[in-house]
Each structure stands twice: as structure tokens, then as C-alpha cells.
């Protein structure tokens, strides 16, 4: 352990490294992902889609290795598989209980395909590792353009759909009776989520995706239940995690994924601790209901 930790070394030239072009790409790319992921987090949680989000990231794995196999951009392979997988989950699992099973099954199949493609493409271990754990430092100019387009699509679509989507997410039965196209909104949401995950996978990787999609929104939800504020706080937390993670990783020359995830989780733990204590005090101090004094 000590010997392994000896490999961690403070980089005295970290400020210069931060100004290099590949870190500029990492900063811009990571920020774009943080915006999209932070915005969608509220819906992932209220729609109980966390497992589906996790699964979509895994479903992207064969997309990425398959893309290497046939020689097309990894982002394209990821996008095709994520969107396709999202639609499949949507078709097979209309009810939450069905969705759990459909998601689990599709997830397993996708992971198996990913292993097969990786083997067929004779992708080396580092390629596979970068799909599983992300490689923010390898974001290219071309990828930045795609990230920009995806994030713009997510932001603009959400601007139009936000209100009915909140209604359909927290209160689907009444929303449907009210004439809100609940099912169509569900499909649109899955596509937005798939696009976001396509990007996030390249930043934090398949296995660490929650840190950008779910954790910032979960942290924000401890502080407020107002959807717009949740989205704003979640975006802020995701951005802070990406930026802080990049700086820290540059300082010690270790993968940014670890630091991004750690910062997001740290914020969640701090808020959990603070709001938990405050919540208990508030319950003790204020009668919950005038009709039912406790």
C-alpha cells in the first residue's frame, strides 16, 4: 500500500499542465456533460430511472467496442446503442416492476456483446479501460463538437418539455387524465438521457456514471424540492466536481474520474449530514400539523 501510494506525486508544474490544449478540451467537454447530466438528474430520480440510467451506460459498452470493431467513431457507436437500448427498455418495461427485469436482461446481453466485440476487435486493455472508466483527458476536438451539439439538444428540448415532463414524472396518472402525452414524453426523455450518457461515459466511464447523473441531483434534492432550483444546484455541483476533479488530477497526475466522482460523493455526504441534523431539529421544533400536534 505504502509502495503503491509512493507513485502519487505532487506535480509542481500543474498550473502549466492545466493550460495545455488537451486539458482545455477536457474542461470544456466535462462542463458540457455536467450541464446536461445535472439538468436530467431530477427526472432520473423522480421517474425512478436510476437503474435504467446505469444500464444505458453499460449498454453503451458494446456500442463503443463495436465501433472500434467496424472502424467508426466511438461516440457514434455509443450513441446508437444508448438510444436503441433506451427505446428497448421503454418498450419492454412500461411498468416499473417490468422495467427492472427488462433493464436487467438487456444490460446483461449488452455487456456480453461488449466483451465479444472487444475480443473480436482485439481492442487493447487500455481502450476497454477507457470505456469502462472514462478518459476525459483524451477528448478530441471532434468529440467536443458532438458534445456541444448533444448538450444544446438536451437544453433546448428540456426548455420546451420541462413543465409537462415534471408533471408526467411526479404525477403520471393525473397528467395522463389531463391530456399530457405521458408516453411520448417518456420516449423523448429516454432519448435525452441516452445522449447525455453517451457523453458522460466518455468523461467518467460506464461504471462511474452515477456521479454526474444521479448524485448531484440527489444532493440538490436534499436542499430543495423545487424542480428549477434542483436543476440549477445539480448543474452547479456537477460543474464543480468536474472542474475540481480536473485540477486535483493534474496536481497529482492521476485519472480525473476518481476525483470527479469523489468530489460529487463528498458534496452529497456533507449535505446529507447537515440536512439530516437540521431536519431532525426542525421536526422537533415545529408542530407538523396544527390538527395533529405531536
Amino acid at each position, binding site marked *: 500500500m505504502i509502495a503503491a501510494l509512493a507513485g502519487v506525486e505532487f506535480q509542481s508544474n500543474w498550473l502549466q499542465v492545466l493550460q495545455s490544449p488537451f486539458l482545455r478540451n477536457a474542461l470544456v467537454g466535462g462542463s458540457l456533460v455536467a450541464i446536461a447530466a445535472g439538468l436530467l438528474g431530477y427526472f432520473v430520480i423522480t421517474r425512478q430511472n436510476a437503474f435504467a440510467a446505469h444500464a444505458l451506460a453499460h449498454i453503451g459498452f458494446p456500442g463503443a467496442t463495436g465501433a472500434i470493431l467496424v472502424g467508426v467513431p466511438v461516440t457514434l457507436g455509443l450513441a446508437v446503442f444508448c438510444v436503441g437500448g433506451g427505446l428497448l427498455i421503454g418498450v419492454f418495461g412500461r411498468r416499473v416492476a417490468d422495467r427492472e427485469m427488462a433493464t436487467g436482461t438487456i444490460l446483461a446481453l449488452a455487456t456480453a456483446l461488449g466483451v465479444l466485440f472487444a475480443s473480436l476487435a482485439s481492442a487493447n486493455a487500455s481502450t476497454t479501460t477507457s470505456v469502462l472508466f472514462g478518459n476525459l483527458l483524451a477528448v478530441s476536438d471532434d468529440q467536443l463538437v458532438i458534445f456541444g451539439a448533444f448538450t444544446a439538444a438536451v437544453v433546448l428540448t428540456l426548455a*420546451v418539455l*420541462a*413543465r*409537462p415532463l415534471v408533471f408526467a414524472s*411526479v*404525477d403520471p396518472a*393525473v397528467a395522463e387524465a389531463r391530456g399530457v402525452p405521458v408516453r411520448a414524453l417518456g420516449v423523448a426523455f429516454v432519448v435525452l438521457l441516452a445522449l447525455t450518457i453517451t457523453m458522460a461515459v466518455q468523461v467518467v466511464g460506464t461504471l462511474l456514471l452515477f456521479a454526474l447523473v444521479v448524485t448531484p441531483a440527489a444532493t440538490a434534492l436534499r436542499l430543495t*424540492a423545487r424542480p428549477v432550483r434542483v436543476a440549477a444546484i445539480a448543474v452547479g455541483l456537477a460543474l464543480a466536481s468536474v472542474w475540481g476533479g480536473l485540477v486535483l488530477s493534474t496536481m497529482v497526475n492521476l485519472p480525473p474520474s476518481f476525483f470527479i466522482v469523489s468530489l460529487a460523493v463528498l458534496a452529497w455526504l456533507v449535505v446529507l449530514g447537515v440536512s439530516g441534523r437540521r431536519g431532525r431539529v426542525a421536526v422537533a421544533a415545529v408542530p*407538523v*400539523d396544527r390538527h395533529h400536534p405531536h
Partner: protein
Amino acid sequence: MARGGQTVWSDGTFTVRPGAVVGVIGPNGAGKTTLFQLALGLLAPSSGRIEVLGAPPRRGNRRIGYVPQNYTAALGEAIRCRDLVTLGLTGGRFGLRPTSAAERAQVDDALRRVGALDFAERRMSELSGGQQQRVAIAQAIVDDAELLLLDEPLANLDLRNQQEIVRLLGDLHRDRDVTIMVVAHDLNPLLPVLTDAVYLLDGHPHHDEIGEVVQEELLTHLYGTPVGVVRTAQGDLFTRAAWRDPVHQQENAREAGA
């Protein structure tokens, strides 16, 4: 009315008059919720004709307020009461236009009418069952619905909360002349406000005034188990399970024969 290849019920012809407070009763699985889904335009009848408020049912009819069954169980942490009621008014609107002052006033008014203004800023998950039901009703009336459909609004509520919700329904009916239809498996708490009932008997819906429905023979047939009807000296009406211990019954029979 058929659903999933099975006929839920058939041959029902009835008219609910505007301003009535109607109990929709019948045993589990009789199709009470299905009746609501027809009225809401979420299901189409396999044959026959329905009119709601003078027009064929259609999804998204703003003149109908709806409180589904187990409503509150599905909602949790992530929404404040006030925001939920606001969605009843503006939730179908696409685009970024913010809630107007007039709309906020309408939401406040709905919250006040159900007595939920005090806890409007709280999350749904922080409220008691009775409080959540009030918010659900506020959401249903916020758009000035003329017809309220409530599916088991008293389920999982204690006696006091049941009475408060029933009193609230009575107030809404009196102040606004709202027509109310309530699905309920237990008639008793609602009897003070009900004017009519729709009962699903042997696969057919029937409609009558409440006094004609609350009869021992009819209710016993309807629920497939002995039901007694008691009228107190004060004029209060209530039903009770009339099941008797067999030994008891034999004694009664002997006495009757003697």
C-alpha cells in the same frame, strides 16, 4: 365495457344529474375505476355511448378534476404541495413561460379552499395521509372543475381524517355546485353527503337515489355478503356487516319458530 378481452360490465343506462354527489359502489373488481377511466376518455367503450358534461369523453378535459386511487403513495420527496397544485393548472403547457400572478392566485385559492395553505410549502412526503389527500383535491379543483372524480379518497385514512375529507367534499358541493363522483368500498363515512349512487350489480351499472340504494336486500346482493342497514332515531343512516355466528343464528331461528 370490455377490457383485456373480458367484459367488465355491460348494459348500463343512466344519467347523473348536475350537482349530484354520487357514490360509485360495488365489490372489488366490479369496474368502478373503469367507469372513471371511461369518463376521463382514457378508455373507450367497446359499444354504446357516453356523454360527460354534454359531450363525448376526451382526454385532457379541463372541466373534470381527477384524484386517482393510491394517489399519494406514488408521490414523494421531490415535489412541494404548491408546485403539485400548480401542475394541475399549468402542467400541460409546453415552453418556458413562467407561472403568472393570476395563476399563482388561483393556486392559493385552491389551497385555501381545502385548508392546505398552512403546509403548501412542504414536500408531499412530509405530510400525513389526510393532508396529502387535501392537496390532491386542491390540484383537482384548481382549474375550476365542474365534475370531480375521486377514486377511494378515504382509503388509508383514520376516522377523523375521513370525516374531514367528507366535510370538505360537502363544502365544495355546496359552495360551487360541483358534481362529485366518489368511488368507495365503504359507504358509511360518505353517507352524510351522498345524494345518489351508481352501483355495479351482477355486471351491470345501475343508478338511483342514495335512499333507494341503501337497502339491506340490495346491498347484501351487491356485496355477496350479509349487510344490514340501521337508521337511528336521529335519522342517521349506516350500514353494517350482518354476519352472524352460526350458533347465534340457530338460536335466532329457534326463537323465531317458537
